[in-house]
């Protein structure tokens, strides 16, 4: 029964914001019949130990991921372009948290 249920309920990805001001981070995935159930399941599965103050859920099928086989062409070219890092500027003291 368990595997049948899991096959019929779509997979959702869960993003949790741990406290005010921080980004939502991917926490994991779960099965649920719809968005409302996914939200509650996320609350029950991923915030039991005070992990979160905000939850996003999105059906996994709506996430489009880059292809690992293309990693070399996508990411390696940035490797030797140090001039893209903003490390050549002197920051005034008034600017914090950069």
């Amino acid at each position, binding site marked *: *029964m368990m595997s049948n*249920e899991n096959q019929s309920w779509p997979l959702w990805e869960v993003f949790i914001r741990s406290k005010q001001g921080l980004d939502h981070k991917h926490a994991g995935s779960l099965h649920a019949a719809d968005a409302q*159930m996914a939200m*509650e*399941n996320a609350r*029950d599965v991923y915030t039991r130990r005070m992990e979160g103050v905000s939850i996003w859920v999105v059906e996994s099928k709506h996430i489009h991921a880059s292809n690992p086989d293309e990693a070399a062409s996508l990411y390696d070219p940035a490797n030797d372009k140090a001039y893209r890092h903003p490390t050549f500027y002197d920051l005034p003291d008034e600017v914090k948290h950069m």
Partner: protein
Amino acid sequence: MNNISLTNYTLHLADNALIMGHRNSEWCGHGPVLEQDIALSNIALDHIGQARNFYQYAASLQNNGSTEDSLAFLRDAIDFKNCLLVELPNGDWAQTVLRLFFFSTYQYYLYQQLQNSKDPQLAAIAEKSLKEVTYHLRWSSEWVIRLGDGTGESKQRMLDALENTWSFTGEMFEACDYETEAALAGIGVDLIKVRNEWDEKIASVLFEATLPIHEDVWMQTGGKKGIHTEHLGFILAEMQFLQRAYPGAEW
């Protein structure tokens, strides 16, 4: 209000929470899907946490060496003051979520009033527990709607669950002596008000779930006075076995 009545009233609140928690904990490892297994286990732990708070207070009222553990593990069925509703077997998932919906709605309106109790300890426990119960009510009512307004089979299961459970709902609102005393002393709650709010909430959720409202039927009663169904004895046999067989065992 005398100390014995206040103790009994506190034990009644504790026993309701403990037995409900125990029943829901029976689903741990057996839920229909992993996520719901965790959800119901969380809810069971909330109930047992509430029971602990009430038992600790009852033990301090008794002041005779009793503890939260002795109250939970060393009393017999006739001393338990929980409503019959919470000791009913879980049945299938439909019956489990419907019973939890009935009970959570009751706890929700009861704790809302109990927050204003003249007894500061009961008021504090009610306020703390209300956040949990608000979620229990949301979770269970959504399942009632999902199954009632779902497939032919899920609807039939909800109809069967209603049939099996409804006649155990009336007892929650039938005040026994310690509840009447507590209400008069400003410590307990007005059960008529709880009943009216309960009726309204139940009607609106059952309507959304396309399930019928049961008219007045003869209601089972007795649990609050220690007269229980045969099911409570089996719950206690399992729950209390270890402390009975190995008194004082810790781990």
